């Protein structure tokens, strides 16, 4: 399952690491945009196979944030 950015944003906090087990609804990353902290949540349970962002990165709309298997 690919988790993608819904909007242009700064990556404020990364809360998971590759190989970590996550549950549906867990917050993976917190983005910062439009003066708001916007959580990016897992839309299913699994293991974080890839994590494509680091704190301080800028993501564009549609950019890959993580892959969960």
């Amino acid at each position: 399952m690919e988790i993608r950015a819904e909007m242009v944003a700064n990556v404020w906090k990364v809360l998971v690491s590759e190989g970590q087990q996550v549950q549906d609804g867990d917050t993976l990353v917190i983005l910062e945009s439009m003066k708001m902290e916007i959580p990016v949540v897992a839309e299913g349970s699994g293991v974080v196979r890839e994590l494509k962002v680091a704190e301080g990165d800028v993501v564009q709309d549609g950019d890959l944030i993580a892959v969960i298997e």
Partner: protein
Amino acid sequence: MSNEPQTDPRSPVVRLTTLFDPGSLELISPIDDCGMLAGIGTISGTRTVAFASDATIQGGAMGSVGCSVVVRAYDRALLEGAPIVGLWHSGGARLREGVESLDGVGRVFAAMTRASGKIPQISVVLGPAAGGAAYGPALTDVVIMAPAGRIFVTGPDVVRSVTGEDVDMERLGGAEVHGRRSGVVHLVADSDAQAFEYARELVTLLGNHGKFGDVPIVDVDLAGCIPDAAKRAYDVHPLVEGILDSPGVELHPKWAPNIVTTLGRLGGRTVGVIANNPLRLGGCLDTTSAEKAARFVRMCDAFGIPLVVVVDVPGYLPGLGQEWDGVVRRGAKLLHAFAEAVVPRITLITRKAYGGAYIAMNSRALGATRVLAWPGAEVAVMGAVAAVRILHRRKLAEVGEALRPSLELELAAEHEKISGGIEKAVALGVVDEVVEPSRTRTAIAEAIAAAPAVRGEHGNIPL
């Protein structure tokens, strides 16, 4: 009709019987092979007209005679001022009849449009609904999709032969497509039984101008529904449910989730709630959420349903994608919808309302009946810190990096006092009253009760 119309679960008699209150169905068209059946009955006591396509004959294809059955059902519903429910399972116009069936389908569309905004129209898609049978539901107020429901203009076979694209019915027009991506479907049901239950609930909420017996308002403290930190995102659903007597029916829950549109009851009366959801896209307005909300506002206005607008919005979503998608044109629909609406419409600003999105979310200037705000709410062109970064750019550049953050905060506090604070908004008259979260339900209900019960005179074009 097929040989065993009473036992085939696809039979229109069986489906209409399931929809209505037990024993209340009275057929208003003959049982024959025209492919459509219409009846009148009650739904939780509300007199309602319904029609169903007959999936047991030619896959429910619509012929000229069957289309006349639907048109007559519409005439009857308009005459009685009753809601109308369509049960769809149809491949579209009957091929064999040629242009005669197309003419019939066109007459159905015209009947639906004549009734638009006058009586609530609800569609339940129980099986494939293609071509004319796709646009039929699309012209109505609310579309409900059952698990076997599929909606598309052209089926997989035609798509394959014309473009070579290989897709199945579900990918072309299933629940995932229309519930999440296209916005064609308002409600996706887990079972046929749930689809019928949704239709019954909506008839009750939208019928009879949403009037019910009075239920005393019990105030609850809603403050806990939003976080203390101003930048923290949260799910607005608990707040919406807290305002309503009971959870209500959320339309389009997965499409444009950054705005929530829910029909429910407050003090026993139907209301439509529109709420920014900061959990998604920070609660920003964008092209799809503006269109979704605009259509909901116009539907509620047409049926005399008061609006409760819960505002916590950082702005319109900026960027290339939005501009190219027509955020100016599509966002304007929400401005138009609110400014045009005559039903009581109450705004509650919980945390912040910035910029153009402040105006769009049923502001005083657009004609809000009453604008309420929670203590500490911010109404401004933009956030105070962002504003002073522009207004005091030079001053901030001069002080150097070490002192800049503290100066920013100092200037922001000062700026808030003179331009953005809620006291200023009250003094200007753009906010009528600062209410405590613990008194909010009463304040909203009183404002609705004090306004005249009127309804907009316009159709509900599927924006």
